[in-house]
């Protein structure tokens, strides 16, 4: 259930009240492209800590979710890649940040399972590698698979090109990436949209995330 439509569009300052210490936060984006900079900023202003960040990568120290890691608000990241952000690596080695690495396709499927009510998925990715550790392995038709389990979060912060007032979303080019999957997999879904349009202005065939999944909409600050 989402709040009534009229109430979804809020000021950026209003979302801060939804953040808590220790939350699991899913963030859209790939190297920061498709990550909502304004909502990352809101998380920083909120001052909450001990966050678990779930997304593709930790981008760069100054982009994507990088700043949250730089200032020490994250206790844990669940990502496929940290190589572009040396701060993540340094904090990991210093024992200040727990890093769980997941193959990118497996991360996508685990988030999808979390949003789709599935108990898990069997993937061949990671068989025979360190990714196997602690996981069930099944053999089907002579091929080995790992059982990968669902991932969910308390809140998802997403970036859209366009939102209508009801919450229907359109993403732009490669900024789509994990955003539509995470819209399904979090208890509270907050979107930062570059443009807000009236409900009905987006063709129903072109909606990439339906309004029913979106709880709060913030319009991005003009650059």
């Amino acid at each position, binding site marked *: *259930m989402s709040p009534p439509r009229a109430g979804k569009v809020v000021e950026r300052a209003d979302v801060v009240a939804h953040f808590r210490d220790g939350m699991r936060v899913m963030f859209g984006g790939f190297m920061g492209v498709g990550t909502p900079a304004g909502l990352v900023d809101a998380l920083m202003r909120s001052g909450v800590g001990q966050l678990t960040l779930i997304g593709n990568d930790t981008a760069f120290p100054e982009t994507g979710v990088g700043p949250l890691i730089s200032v020490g608000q994250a206790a844990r990241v669940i990502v496929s890649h940290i190589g572009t952000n040396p701060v993540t690596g340094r904090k990991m080695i210093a024992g200040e940040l727990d890093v769980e690495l997941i193959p990118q396709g497996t991360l996508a499927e685990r988030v999808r399972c979390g949003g789709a*009510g599935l108990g898990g998925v069997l993937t061949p990715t990671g068989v025979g590698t360190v990714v196997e550790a602690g996981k069930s392995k099944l053999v089907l038709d002579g091929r080995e698979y790992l059982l990968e389990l669902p991932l969910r979060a308390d809140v998802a912060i997403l970036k859209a090109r366009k939102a209508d007032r*009801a919450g229907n979303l359109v993403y732009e080019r490669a900024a789509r990436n994990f955003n539509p999957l995470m819209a399904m997999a979090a208890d509270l879904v907050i979107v930062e949209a570059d443009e807000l349009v009236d409900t009905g202005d987006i063709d129903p065939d072109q909606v990439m995330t*339906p309004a029913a999944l979106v709880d709060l909409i913030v319009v991005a600050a003009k650059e």
Partner: protein
Amino acid sequence: MNAKERIARRIGREFRSGHVVNLGIGLPTLVPRYLPEGIDITLQSENGFLGLGPLVGEPRPGVVNAGGQPCGLISGAAFFDSAMSFALIRGGHVDITVLGGLQVDEEGSLANWMVPGKMVPGMGGAMDLVTGARKVIVAMEHCTRDGEPRLVERCSLPLTARARVSMVVTELAVFTISHGEFVLQELAPDVAVDELRRKTQARFLVSPDLRAMPL
């Protein structure tokens, strides 16, 4: 007011604005006609969209409900594929589903998709809906045409899903189900509890807050 209208009207009172609702074929499709004033819900259609509305004007290509019949769209509708449609259903993104029933039992199990040797249409999306929707309401007449009770101790027909029904609304009464027991919550004004027990094979508790079913 006939039995079906009575049931549909009562179920309409369960909805809140913002609810995402999937309605089974038959009786459940009557519910939107009886929504209380000011309640704004979104109907999901398992053939792949949110924002089902009544047909207005000429049918448009591809705008059909899950029964294959032309329908309309509300402003802000959105289409998607079948995997997404059932991800929404199974993933708990549908707040309420209302389905017809053949039998409901004390455990909250529902049988509504086949009668061995008679009717084998296939489960379609019913098993996913009953398994995945946050609240499952069964809308059915209290007894079969032959007077057989439909609220039973244990379903004899093949199940649609086990232990997922949370509410049953008939023309005689409203029951909730929790912890393996039917609880009578509301009774129609023209019905006595004794009569209801004769027409109900399942055991049921009477809520201490028993109310008159609003008609």
